[in-house]
């Protein structure tokens, strides 16, 4: 921790987040644990990928990272500061340094805002004033950075395609020159051709501006291409942390994910391992391993005892019977 450049930019320390739902007015209050005891360092200047299926808590983790949601248990430290300990004004100032790009470009821009308004809003919020000419110039430069024609500044969101809107989202995130950007499935609702464009843009911006990314995705193929490190989540918990994209996976769930990814190569068709069993409900978590019901290696121990995330070297896995 002595060298500030080697210290992680973001740290999750035993973070859990519960949501409660009530069945009707007099109904029983039920609690769902969306994120369950995640401890994770996000190294500076790297792309950390978080991959998992819907309901695995990856989007909740993204929001916990930026304190858009408060942790129920545990702490999130950004640049060493516990975000929950900050006063509202201090937290708002801190948000300059950590930004987010959202999944749905169609609803992430206020329909009443022109593209210029949307890109300039971060400055307005932080009381950074521009003369009209400066503002115009600044917006144009941000749009250019995101690969957009500066002429689009006068347009409204409904006049733009999904890919263009996502570029606006990126321009907005860059406005305040942040250190960390959380990318919450930024390409999930785009065509593959546009997805590849956006990923190329993000890679270029990262190397030019020295950004750190937390990249949330359901697409393991994409995560393996784009990220330096991969966190695999299942039912709210990190089950495996791969230190590099070519590290051999050790958790049976990661293997299932790998096998499910469709390669663009008809010569290498895979027989899909049949998954039996349903994903357990996050309202009633099993006492043992959450993946046991679908795992072909599951033993009695897996149903009874919850595996903890054990780190060997830089590789971490939470499994009683890890693969070799």
């Amino acid at each position: 921790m002595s060298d500030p450049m080697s210290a992680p930019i973001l740290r999750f320390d035993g973070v859990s987040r519960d949501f409660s739902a009530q069945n009707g007015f007099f109904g029983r209050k039920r609690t769902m644990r969306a994120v369950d005891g995640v401890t994770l360092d996000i190294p500076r200047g790297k792309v950390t990928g978080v991959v998992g299926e819907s309901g695995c808590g990856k989007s909740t983790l993204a929001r916990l990272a930026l304190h858009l949601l408060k942790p129920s248990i545990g702490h999130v430290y950004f640049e060493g500061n516990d975000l929950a300990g900050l006063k509202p004004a201090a937290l708002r100032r801190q948000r300059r340094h950590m930004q987010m790009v959202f999944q749905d470009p169609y609803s992430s821009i206020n329909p009443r805002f022109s593209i210029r308004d949307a890109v300039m809003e971060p400055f307005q919020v932080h009381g950074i004033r521009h003369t009209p000419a400066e503002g115009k110039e600044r917006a144009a430069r941000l749009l250019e950075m995101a690969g957009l024609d500066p002429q689009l500044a006068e347009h409204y969101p409904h006049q733009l395609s999904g890919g263009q809107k996502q570029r606006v989202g990126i321009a907005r995130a860059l406005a305040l020159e942040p250190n960390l950007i959380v990318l919450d499935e930024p390409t999930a609702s785009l065509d593959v051709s546009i997805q590849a464009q956006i990923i190329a843009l993000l890679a270029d911006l990262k190397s030019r501006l020295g950004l750190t990314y937390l990249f949330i995705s359901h697409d393991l193929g994409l995560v393996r291409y784009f990220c330096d490190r991969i966190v695999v989540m299942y039912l709210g918990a990190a089950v495996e942390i791969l230190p590099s994209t070519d590290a051999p996976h050790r958790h049976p769930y990661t293997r299932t994910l790998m096998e499910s990814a469709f390669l663009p190569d008809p010569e290498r068709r895979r027989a899909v391992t049949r998954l039996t069993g349903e994903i357990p409900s996050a309202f009633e978590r099993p006492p043992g391993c959450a993946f046991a019901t679908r795992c072909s290696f599951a033993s009695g121990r897996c149903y009874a005892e919850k595996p903890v995330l054990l780190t060997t070297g830089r590789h971490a896995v939470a499994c009683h019977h890890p693969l070799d």
Partner: protein
Amino acid sequence: MSLLAVDDLSVSIGMVPLLDRVSFSLDRGEVLGLVGESGSGKSLTAMTLMGLLPLIGGRITAGRVRFDGIDLTTLPEPAYRDLRGQRIALISQNPMTSLDPILTVGAQIDQASRLHAGLSAAAARARSLDLMHQLRIPEAVAIHGQYPHQLSGGMKQRIVIAMALAGDPDLIIADEPTTALDVTIQAQIIQILCDLVAERGLALLLITHDMGVVAQACHRVSVLYAGRGAETGPVHDIFARPRHPYTKALIGCIPREGQAPGTLVGIPGMVPTAFAYPKGCRYHPRCTAAAPDCRTEVPAGSIQGVGGSIVFCHHPLEVGHV
């Protein structure tokens, strides 16, 4: 003769021409992938084949669609109604919109059986349970009595497939059947569909934007771009030797295992809208190999290679140029 033969199909909505001379064919026991980005005309093709164009104010302006010897372009609506569901079934992208929230899923599969095969209530139920077993739905009896909201997305899509199968169709049109689902579930559903084609001798038209799905599931591929055919051919041939620059670019959009950082670039620009189709080859503004004739002349289809791929390009890529 093919089960389904689409020849030079052109479709307009109002005054706007959206499909321009699209051709492909599909046999029993075959999976044909219809691929392209949004705006390529994939879903419009599905609507045309289902005879649903009038619903969106569209009409066929030229070309023929023959299904098992029947000319679908001139088929009157009552006869089409008999065909839909019974011989041609549609599986749509969002299972939520295909299921009635106030009926149990079992009742909905039963209903499809009774409507199409004229079965008694008991026989329909037995048949539904049989179909659910075939689709590897665990605890079929329990699920038969549940409502859509009680089921996961993957389970709902399996119910929709069971409903499609209840009419014992010859042709299934699946429009992005797994786009809304998780990857592990997507793999299962695609596997189920492919097994059905092999076991029952169905024909499957698989509409998707994902070249990965095509590579894993299809026998043949037809690539559409901006309402026109780009390239049609056997899947192995298309992936090993794509001859249309668009096909090659589309395949290149999916990261491969061990792909070097910075090598995934996508396709510059975007699909033009129907109001602003460029002259000549519609792909030329995005094409890295565009020549002067691409800007003026519409490319005609030419047969390339031993696989018999048909390519609509003035300057098809050389074989081995992968």
